[in-house]
């Protein structure tokens, strides 16, 4: 049974991405609702269904929770039609989280691409609220174009801070005349700006293709698989380990994830990097078509 929440604030992050600031209608629920950085929830637009996003605000922020979503499908389109003061449903929090306790005393490297910044932003803000407990912090965030960058206000604040290094990049062709950040894909920018791999934990979120090309770079720079954390974003429906949609092998991403280390992902059946298999199948299909 979802809780109902009021949309307190709508922030248009980019032409297709929107952030809702939400407060539970029931004061008791609002007080009791607790989560950890990396957990997700099921948000419903009643009449069109539910959609899965991470909780994008920091757990240290007690007054409200935020979610950011890119308009893609039926539910996100429906959510976009809602106005300030309207009601949405929230179920959660579900899934596991980033083990911030274990990160204490270490350097942190955040790498995000596109909407993948949402879960990373939750961790960043959580960490910045406890800044003294972590060592050097580096943030690398890339988007397709300048207008696709989200959390622009917060990026400004991060850039202004002396105690973190913030590198923002856009894909070639996505820059504007006044763009003062980097231009290039995330893996290349990472190569130039990566901190020492020693005693550093990586938090990596982004589209599958970015993760695929970033991982070899990280490995090349000496980052260990067990210190690279990422979130797997599979399609989900129930969030309760029942509906069978998100599983990879024995793992239900909604229960055992969404946060995994790269070492853990490598142990799973390789349903994501399975390009060899795909190519073999294409060849077969072509052969079939040729007769």
């Amino acid at each position, binding site marked *: 049974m979802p809780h109902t929440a009021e949309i307190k604030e709508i922030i248009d992050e980019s032409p297709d991405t929107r952030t809702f600031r939400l407060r539970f209608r029931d004061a008791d629920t609002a007080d009791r609702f607790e989560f950890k950085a990396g957990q997700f929830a099921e948000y419903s637009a*009643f009449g069109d269904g539910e959609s899965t996003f991470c909780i994008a605000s920091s757990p240290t922020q007690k007054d409200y929770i935020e979610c950011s979503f890119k308009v893609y499908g039926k539910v996100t389109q429906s959510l976009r039609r809602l106005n300030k003061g309207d*009601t949405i449903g929230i179920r959660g929090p579900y899934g596991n989280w980033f083990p911030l306790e274990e990160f204490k005393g270490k350097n942190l490297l955040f790498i995000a691409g596109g909407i993948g910044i949402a879960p990373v932003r939750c961790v960043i803000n959580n960490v910045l609220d406890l800044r003294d407990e972590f060592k050097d912090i580096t943030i690398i965030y890339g988007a397709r174009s300048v207008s696709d960058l989200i959390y622009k206000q917060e990026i400004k604040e991060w850039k202004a801070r002396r105690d973190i290094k913030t590198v923002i990049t856009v894909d070639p062709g996505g820059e504007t005349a006044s763009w003062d950040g980097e231009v290039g894909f995330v893996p290349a920018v990472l190569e130039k700006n990566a901190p020492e791999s020693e005693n550093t934990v990586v938090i990596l979120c982004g589209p599958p293709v970015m993760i695929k090309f970033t991982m070899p770079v990280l490995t090349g720079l000496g980052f260990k698989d067990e210190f690279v954390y990422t979130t797997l974003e599979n399609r989900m429906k129930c969030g309760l380990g*029942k509906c069978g949609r998100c599983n990879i092998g024995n793992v239900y991403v909604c229960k055992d994830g969404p946060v995994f280390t790269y070492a853990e992902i490598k142990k799973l059946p390789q349903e994501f990097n399975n390009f060899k298999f795909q190519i073999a199948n294409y060849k077969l299909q072509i052969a079939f078509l040729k007769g």
Partner: protein
Amino acid sequence: MTQRSIQMDEKIISRVDLLNICQDVIEKGNTLLTPGVADYSVVKDVSNLNLDASALPSKISYKSYVFPRTEPVLYYKRSKNDVQLIDVNIDSKKIVILGAKPCDANSLNIMKHLFNWDYSDEFFNMRAKNFIVIGLMCSHFDEYCFCTSVGSSPVSEKGSDIFLIPLDENNYAMKIITDKGKEFITPYSGYLKSGDENRSKRITENVKQPDVAFDSSEVYKWLGENFESPKWEGVGNLCLSCAQCAFVCPVCHCFDITDEDYSYTEGRRMKNWDGCQFGNFTLHASGHNPRDIQSKRYRQRVNHKFRYYVNKFGEILCTGCGRCSRGCPVSVDIKEIVSNCKNDQKELR
């Protein structure tokens, strides 16, 4: 759900008395289900009830009575800005299933693990609690049956609360397996005569059983080592992704959640059957699809049944009923596939 009682009672009941019990069940307002050709259906009139151990399994198991094809999980009412949520009352009528095939009888036992790990699904549990399963020995088998390969058999009592063995045309041996079964049958104990275990044993021992087609532990091992086997391509190219196999399966349990508006202000959230063979089952909104081609989806199906579920819950997610193969429009036969997995010469299909 099923607790094995200490003493296993064996009784004899005549066909007429069995029908009397059924009549009473119906008169008390409970639902009585028996297997038909297509489905397990509700019996209104016991006079034409036919308990045939040699019947072909119905096309669909009784899964839908505990995990319906579609059911509301909540209702909502929208006013100007607010939304009001209303709980669903789960129908808690007692359901007696008379003549469940042994392969079907075990299905709830297999599914209950999934519906109760971590979060308990109240919809499933409430219905399962109200189920009385009266199993009937099965003397049918065809080329699709393989219950004996997945740890069951035509005389398996697993999952039944009460188990029947036809002794002759007019009498059945009745074994009371669980406390639930005992509680159900106690009011009718006047109908029961004391039984002779040797007599029923002679029958069960002589039932023709499907040959063991494969060793499930070897299949388990093969699947672990052959995730990327080119063998998956053969069946992937054959399969139509229609997912009938999932719908007729007594233990497939994937579902979808969707909203349905029935007026501008009111609607309900529905839980519907879904199938892992559909192309859009794992399709992300972004267009990325982890299981984008049929061979990956079929691989998921076989792995889930014979490896993942075993890892997670210690049981094979299959009862060996053969429905998926019997109903497949392109004759994909799961028994053949897993039996041939180790055979290098043969393509999986």
